[in-house]
């Protein structure tokens, strides 16, 4: 019997952590209780995108999009919507700007402004059910390649599409495939780089969780094109759900003859093995990743020789990012010209971004290349929460750079971002508002890269901590007049002399903040002032005697007992010598009586 309702509940990691599994169980329970088991199907999908609003679910055929659903809502949804056909209004998405409840998913601006190619199946199909993937044209591209195209034609098609590496550097994928295909040797490998390490980035994880077969199919097509019979997916061990779904997917594909020996009875054989990474940032660098798969310590080595010539186990190796593989089947099915019709001349196609930070709609989005940063942050992202002022956006994570408001209309493509001192990176986008301190931001990222440095080459091992020391000094208010010049000098040396991409790009956050927010650094050094009131050494907390009502809450909340006063007898006073400037009192004060002032 056909179903009349499909309930898709997001099973991405973000929604699962807000207990979408309990919501699903409650919905299933209510459906059974109302005798609708035969009419309604419940499917757990991959990430739908608006992670901030989870758990989310969408009900078809209406397309009603429910947000922040709790298990207690299950009965009302089943009785009102599934039985009587009246969507539960209070759980639908209401756009803050329009103050309007939106009945259909496709009308939500967050979705309407996106173009989902790579993520088309994410949030639409059950990633653990290979038949749903096949229903959505899955493995059709593989079938086409194996029966209608020669390996050379596949390489040429990918080259003609203009697809560039989605890991961040933007190297032309077709050219990379050609290098491997042309490399001498009978044993070759295909490796999928799923070592997503940027803080705040979750593009690869979401694709692996939401549509694992797309990556497997992309790798298999690549293997046919370059002549490989063995592949590895390198994925972080801290992505247990992605690993689980990849295992289910590879097993199912093998069981149906879509992976392994004699694929689709064409004589072509290719199999994939999963390798779990231990979470070292440097292993995202291709030579370090290869070393890690080989069972060695994850350290990069000088290139050349490039992996395309001498990679995994010294053999020619094709290594592409998760999202790059996710694009392949669409190019094969729709053609290179179709792909080129999306995005820009030099950067065709779409790009998946993980929006995070000070933006209303945080989550996973996909847009055509060439979309402006403004459209991404204000159109899809919904702008900055709490009426605050936009300050900057960091693209490319710790290897990327910071872009200020005056460049918001820059189109997102590899070259434009690079010209601004940032990079595309794998797709992490962190939005910052007036409450973010740029010195502190640079310090945060440098702390990350310095601790993730593998320690092999001197510029990175010694240079990054030296830069960090200067940044820490500046945020303590002890900066010296020549610190900024010294910082720039060090940054350039580290950039030029480091062995691998980690060191070469680690100074980017420092250099880009120096370029666009130099006056903020200077304020820290000359005036001992942090305008965002973030650097704790440069601020003090003060209770406004006019506003204090003597409620005693701050005194009780203070972890170091720095506040004194008598209940009902305001004002209370903070002992600045004892205060550790943790901000707890300010959070608990019901009268907004506590202010942060400059220390000097």
């Amino acid at each position, binding site marked *: 019997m*056909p179903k009349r*309702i499909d309930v898709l509940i997001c099973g991405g990691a973000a929604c699962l952590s807000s207990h979408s599994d309990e919501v699903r169980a409650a919905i299933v329970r209510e459906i059974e209780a109302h005798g609708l088991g035969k009419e309604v199907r419940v499917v757990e999908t991959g990430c739908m995108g608006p992670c901030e609003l989870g758990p989310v679910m969408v009900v078809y055929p209406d397309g009603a999009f429910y947000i922040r659903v709790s298990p207690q809502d299950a009965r009302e949804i089943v009785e009102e919507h599934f039985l009587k056909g009246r969507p539960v209004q209070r759980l639908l998405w209401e756009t803050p700007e329009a103050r309007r409840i939106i009945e259909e998913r496709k009308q939500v601006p967050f979705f309407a402004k996106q173009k989902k190619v790579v993520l088309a199946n994410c949030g639409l199909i059950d990633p653990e059910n290979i038949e*749903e993937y096949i229903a959505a044209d899955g493995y059709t591209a593989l079938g086409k390649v194996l029966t209608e195209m020669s390996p050379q034609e596949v390489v040429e098609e990918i080259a003609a599409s203009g697809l560039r590496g989605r890991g961040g550097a933007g190297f032309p994928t077709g050219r990379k495939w050609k290098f491997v295909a042309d490399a001498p040797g009978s044993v070759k490998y295909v490796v999928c780089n799923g070592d997503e390490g940027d803080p705040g980035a979750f593009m690869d994880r979401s694709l692996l969780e939401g549509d694992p077969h797309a990556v497997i199919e992309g790798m298999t097509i690549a293997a046919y094109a370059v002549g490989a019979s063995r592949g590895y997916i390198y994925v972080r061990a801290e992505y247990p759900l992605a690993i689980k779904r990849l295992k289910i997917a590879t097993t199912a594909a093998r069981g149906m003859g879509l992976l392994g020996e004699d694929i689709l009875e064409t004589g072509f054989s290719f199999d994939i093995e999963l390798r779990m990474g231990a979470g070292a940032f440097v292993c995202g660098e291709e030579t370090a990743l290869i070393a890690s798969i080989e069972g060695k310590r994850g350290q990069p080595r000088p290139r050349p020789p490039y992996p395309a010539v001498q990679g995994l186990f010294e053999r020619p190796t094709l290594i592409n990012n998760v999202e790059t593989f996710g694009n392949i089947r669409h190019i094969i099915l729709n053609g290179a010209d179709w792909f080129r019709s999306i995005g820009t001349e030099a950067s065709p196609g779409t790009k998946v971004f993980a929006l995070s930070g000070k933006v209303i709609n945080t989550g996973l989005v996909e847009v055509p290349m060439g979309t402006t940063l403004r459209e991404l942050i204000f159109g899809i992202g919904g702008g900055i929460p709490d009426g605050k002022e936009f300050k900057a956006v960091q693209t490319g994570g710790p290897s990327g750079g910071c872009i200020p408001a005056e460049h918001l209309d820059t189109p997102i493509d590899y070259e434009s971002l690079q010209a601004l001192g940032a990079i595309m990176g794998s797709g992490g986008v962190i939005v910052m508002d007036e409450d973010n301190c740029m010195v502190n931001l640079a310090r945060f990222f440098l702390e990350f890269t310095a601790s993730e440095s593998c320690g092999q080459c001197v510029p990175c091992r010694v240079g990054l901590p030296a830069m960090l020391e200067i940044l820490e000094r500046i945020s303590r208010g002890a900066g010296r007049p020549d610190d900024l010049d010294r910082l720039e000098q060090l940054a350039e040396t580290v950039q030029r002399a480091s062995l691998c991409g980690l060191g070469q790009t680690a100074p980017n956050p420092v250099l880009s903040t120096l370029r666009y927010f130099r006056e903020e650094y200077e304020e820290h050094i000359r005036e001992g002032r942090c305008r965002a009131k973030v650097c704790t050494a440069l601020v003090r907390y003060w209770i406004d005697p006019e506003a204090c009502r003597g409620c005693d809450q701050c005194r009780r909340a203070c972890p170091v007992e720095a506040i004194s006063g008598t209940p009902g007898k305001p004002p209370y006073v903070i002992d600045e010598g004892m205060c550790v400037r943790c901000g707890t009192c300010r959070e608990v004060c019901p009268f907004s009586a506590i202010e942060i002032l400059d220390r000097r």
Partner: protein
Amino acid sequence: MKLEDLRKIRERAAKELTLRTGKARVKVIVGMGTSGIAAGARDVLAAFLDEIGKRDLSEVIVTQSGERGLASAEPVVEVHEEGKPTVVYGNVTPEAARRIVAEHIVNGNPVAEYVIEVRE
């Protein structure tokens, strides 16, 4: 598995995705307000699903709506078809539902005795 087998699986599985992809030729809407349910709309809805399943029809989706204000004619069913006027049926029984599937949806002849309105 051969390419041909993959194609067969795809055709079969694609029907399961019709609800989500919205690729439906015919949409059957059963009024499931309180009075509709009281008049037997649930059995009507089940009959539609069963008959569509038996005939293995693709591109047909069955959904439900709330009260339409035609309490005396419940259960009320609307049949929306691409490029054709919408036909509204009243006092539909499970047997009538099966006839609507066979005569209207499959053969294109609305079941006149139950039609209460035709909307352009």
